[in-house]
């Protein structure tokens, strides 16, 4: 009797929805217990409760710096969207432009961005400008590549159908190319926002006077190890939030591209 009741109780829960929360909670519990059992000193690996305490103690500063990082990231990301779209459309416009600029883009993208930050600091001084620019530089590449690829892979038959009717390049782009590259574009936003975030934090840890990256660096210098970890977790939360937002935007904007039901 009790067995059937239990089963219906368990089957009413949506395990897929619960899974991420359970896994996260599990990780922290495991972490807490491990620190406690092996008696790890807090300046090596602080326990989650200790980190939470630090986060509480430095709450206002952590909040302010998180907002700063968020702002920097979004500014860089916004620039990346504008320029990435424009450059992607330009590159995808014509096979020759695509062929000419693609290797340059690859070359540019393979420069480690850490190496660029000092140059940006040299040009713009320490502060938020290099952070925004690093976020921009690191995140616009996937947008460009995805938009250009969407345009460059129009089915030749579709192009023939339209061209035979006297369609101009502009018609083909607006009717087929651009709508076609939108799922690629929105798909790339998820990747781009994560990269923008990495870029801004990277620049903040090198040369800035605010932001979570800067706060981490200061905390480390003061040997406030729990605060360093609190900063890390704040970054993780922000990263997840932005990724989730972009994934949601992608689903909303390009439902037709997810028609296979494979991901459902």
């Amino acid at each position: 009797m009790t067995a059937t009741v239990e089963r219906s109780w368990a089957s009413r829960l949506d395990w897929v929805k619960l899974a991420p929360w359970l896994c996260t909670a599990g990780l922290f519990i495991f972490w807490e217990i491990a620190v406690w059992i092996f008696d790890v000193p807090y300046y090596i690996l602080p326990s989650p409760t200790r980190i939470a305490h630090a986060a509480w103690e430095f709450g206002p500063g952590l909040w302010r710096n998180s907002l700063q990082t968020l702002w920097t990231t979004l500014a860089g990301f916004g620039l990346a969207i504008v320029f990435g779209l424009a450059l992607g459309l330009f590159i995808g416009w014509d096979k020759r432009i695509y062929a000419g600029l693609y290797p340059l883009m690859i070359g540019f993208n393979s420069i480690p961005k850490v190496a660029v930050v000092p140059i940006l600091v040299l040009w713009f001084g320490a502060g938020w400008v290099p952070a925004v620019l690093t976020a921009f530089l690191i995140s616009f590449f996937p947008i460009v590549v995805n938009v250009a690829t969407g345009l460059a892979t129009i089915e030749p038959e579709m192009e023939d159908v339209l061209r035979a009717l006297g369609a101009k390049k502009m018609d083909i782009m607006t009717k087929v190319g651009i709508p076609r590259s939108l799922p690629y574009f929105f798909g790339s936003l998820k990747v781009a926002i994560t990269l923008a975030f990495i870029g801004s934090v990277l620049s903040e840890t090198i040369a800035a006077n605010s932001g979570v990256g800067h706060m981490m660096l200061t905390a480390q210098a003061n040997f406030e190890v729990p605060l360093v970890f609190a900063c890390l977790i704040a970054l993780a939360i922000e990263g997840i939030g932005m990724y989730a937002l972009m994934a949601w935007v992608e689903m909303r904007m390009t439902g037709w591209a997810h028609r296979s039901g494979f991901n459902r």
Partner: protein
Amino acid sequence: MAFVDIQNVALRYKPQGSDEGTLAVEHLDLSVERGEFVAVVGPSGCGKSSLMKLATGLNFPTDGRVTVAGNDVSGPVAIAGMAFQNPVMLPWRLTRDNVLLPLEVVEPHRRSFRSNKKAYQEKAEKLLASVGLEGAGSKFPWQLSGGMQQRASLCRALIHEPELLMLDEPFGALDAFTREELWCVIRDLHASKGFTTILVTHDLREAVFLADRVYVMSARPGKIIVDRHVPLERPRPIEVTYEKEFSDIVQELRGHIADARQ
């Protein structure tokens, strides 16, 4: 002069900046009268699709002359409609809006498209109904079967009432039953609207059933080696395909193709 006239045409695909390249067709002569239904058959790679591109102004001859409706082809021929083996529908548009796509592009419709949208939509639904797709217009193309998509693709080729219909292996990917159904759809559309049709196909029965005239092309570089008139009376019921006269013509053409592949 014939409606479509191709005289001694050669077409060479040149890679950028070189004079070498693939000679797709050479010494190609072909003429199609107004309202005629012509089928082109030939071994794979002999230049049949190239022929379609020449006749619609998507490619220009390296040598020779192509005229359509009395004019030299110097750019895309907007009086043509095209359908291919791959129906290539745009997945973000409803089937009806896919069918309407040519009207958003071709003159003079593109000017009046926005103001007359309702009338155009009704026209599209009517055309869809005439190929057996009632009510499918408000579905997305990926919600249709392959055969239904191919019907919709035919509608897209016909929506601007072209004088010339170009079909490049339109039924190649369909099963035998669907294919025969679509033969009848094309036959009836051709009978009622009277457009000139050029059909490229690998299926000799399809060619003989539909066409007034079958051209056989040689292996690459392609040229016409046989011009076979099909004397079967119209309208042709599908049963005609079981008659001796029909299979004799198919056999004869099969022999020519076998020779062409040597």
